[in-house]
C-alpha cells in the first residue's frame, strides 16, 4: 500500500486550482521508518508527502481547532478516520464545503512491532464513508468481531479484573494526551478540567485516573471509531482501547448493531432509542 505519488498529484492539483489553503498528510520521520503528520501551506513541500502502511495517525484530529471556519483544508483519511470525520461533520464541527477529503481504501496499517495493528485486523470498515476522491478499490463492510482482549478479560474473575485495571490506572500521569489526540473530544472547556471544582477529583491516583478515564470513555461511548489515536499518544502506554471496545461491544450487541460514524446524520447510540432496548437489568 503505497499511495504517495497519487496523493502528491492530487495535492499539487488542489493547490494549482486554488481549492485549498493548506493540506494535511504524512511525512517520513527523520530518524526511523515511522511517519508524522505534516501540514503544508507551500506547494513546494508537496514531494515530502507520503502514504504507506506506516501512516497510522488520524488526521481528522487536525480539523479540530477553528481552522476550517476560515480556511479550506485538504486531508488524507483512512476508513476509520473517515468515520470520525463523518461524526465531526454530523456534529457541526467542520464545514463540509471547506474541506477536500482524499479517502483511502485502507489495507491496514502496522503497529510498532511491524505487525498488522489489532484494530486493522478487527476493522469493520476499511473504505472511506465520506470522501471527495477515493484512492484504491473498495472492499466493503466486514463483519464485526468482539475484541480479543475483551473476550479474554471477560472470562477472568471480578477481583482479578479489578486488580488489573487498578494497576493500569495507577500508571496514568493525567497528561490528557488521550483527550487531545481524539478527534471527537473537541469541547472548548472539558468537564474533567475543572480542577478547582468540588465535583472533580484530579489527583494522580488510581482513583483520580479512574474518574477521568471513565468519564472520558463514557462521553465517547457510541461515538468512538477505534482509530486508537489515544493509545498512540499515551506516554504511559495504557491499553485505553479496552474501555472503548467494551462500550462498543455492549452497544453493538444490545442496540441494533450500532457502529459509530457509519452513516450520515447518525449522531451516536445515545442520541436515539428503541422501545425494545434490553430492560432485564432493571428491577
Amino acid at each position, binding site marked *: 500500500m503505497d499511495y504517495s505519488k497519487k496523493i502528491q498529484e492530487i495535492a499539487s492539483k488542489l493547490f494549482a486550482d486554488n481549492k485549498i489553503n493548506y493540506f494535511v498528510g504524512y511525512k517520513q520521520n527523520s530518524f526511523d521508518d515511522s511517519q508524522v503528520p505534516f501540514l503544508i501551506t507551500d506547494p513546494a513541500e508537496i514531494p515530502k508527502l507520503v502514504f504507506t502502511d506506516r501512516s497510522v495517525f488520524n488526521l481528522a484530529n487536525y480539523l479540530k481547532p477553528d481552522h476550517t471556519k476560515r480556511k479550506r483544508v485538504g486531508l488524507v483519511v483512512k476508513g476509520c478516520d473517515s468515520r470520525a470525520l463523518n461524526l465531526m461533520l454530523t456534529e457541526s464541527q467542520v464545514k463540509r464545503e471547506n474541506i477536500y477529503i482524499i479517502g483511502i481504501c485502507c489495507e491496514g496499517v502496522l503497529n510498532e512491532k511491524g505487525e498488522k495493528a489489532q484494530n486493522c485486523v478487527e476493522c469493520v470498515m476499511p473504505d472511506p464513508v465520506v470522501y471527495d476522491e477515493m484512492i484504491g478499490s473498495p472492499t466493503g463492510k466486514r463483519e464485526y468481531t468482539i475484541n480479543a482482549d475483551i473476550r479474554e*478479560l*471477560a472470562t477472568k474473575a*471480578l*477481583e482479578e*479484573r*479489578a*486488580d488489573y*485495571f*487498578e494497576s493500569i*490506572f495507577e500508571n496514568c500521569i493525567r497528561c490528557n494526551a488521550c483527550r487531545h489526540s481524539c478527534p471527537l473530544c473537541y469541547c472548548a472547556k472539558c*468537564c474533567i478540567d475543572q480542577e478547582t471544582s468540588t*465535583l472533580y*477529583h484530579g*489527583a494522580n*491516583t*488510581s*482513583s*483520580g485516573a*479512574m*474518574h477521568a478515564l*471513565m*468519564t472520558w*470513555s*463514557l462521553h465517547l*461511548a*457510541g461515538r468512538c471509531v477505534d482509530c486508537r489515536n489515544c493509545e498512540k499518544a499515551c506516554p504511559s502506554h495504557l491499553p485505553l482501547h*479496552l*474501555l472503548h471496545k*467494551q*462500550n462498543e461491544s*455492549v*452497544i453493538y450487541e*444490545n*442496540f441494533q448493531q450500532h457502529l459509530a460514524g457509519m452513516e450520515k446524520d447518525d449522531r451516536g*447510540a*445515545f442520541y436515539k*432509542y*428503541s*422501545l425494545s*432496548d*434490553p*430492560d432485564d*437489568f*432493571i*428491577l
Partner: protein
Amino acid sequence: METEVKETQGKIFSAENPGITAPTDWQPVIMGILCNWCSYAGSDLTGTSRIQYPPNIRIIRVPCSSRVDPWFIIKSLQTTADGVLISGCHPGDCHYISGNYYARRRFLVTKKLLNFIGYHENRIQFSWVSAAEGPKFAKVVAKVTEDIKKLGPLHRYKKENF
C-alpha cells in the same frame, strides 16, 4: 493531627478499656437518585403509608432519570457510597415523554463498563418505580441494601483523604 486522633482512638478501643468496643456494626451507604415525577413521589408514598424500609439510602431528587449523568454514579462510588440505586418512571410513563428510554441505554453501558473495571454488578442498580408503587419502592430498597450488605464495604478506587 490525624495521627493523634488515630492514636487516641486506639487507646480508647483497646484491651485496657474492655467496657468500650469499637463500632463494628457496619452499615452500607446507598446513593439513591430518584426522578421527581414517579420514584420520588413513590418513595413519598412509602413514607406516608408507614411502610418500613432500610434507612441506608440517601435520596437525591432529579427532574428525570435521563438527568443522571454516569458521572454521578462514578462520583458516588468514588467518595462515600457503597452502592448506587437509580430509579425512574416506567417505560412509556416518562413526564418528558422519552427521557427514560435514553437513560436506559446509558445505564446499561455504564453498568457494564463499571462491572468491567471491577465493581460488582450489584453495586449499581436501577429500578422503575411509579408514583403509586410505595410497597415496591420499599422492596427495592430492602433488596439493594441486602445485596450490598452481602458484598461488604467498598474499598476499590476510593478517593483518599476525602
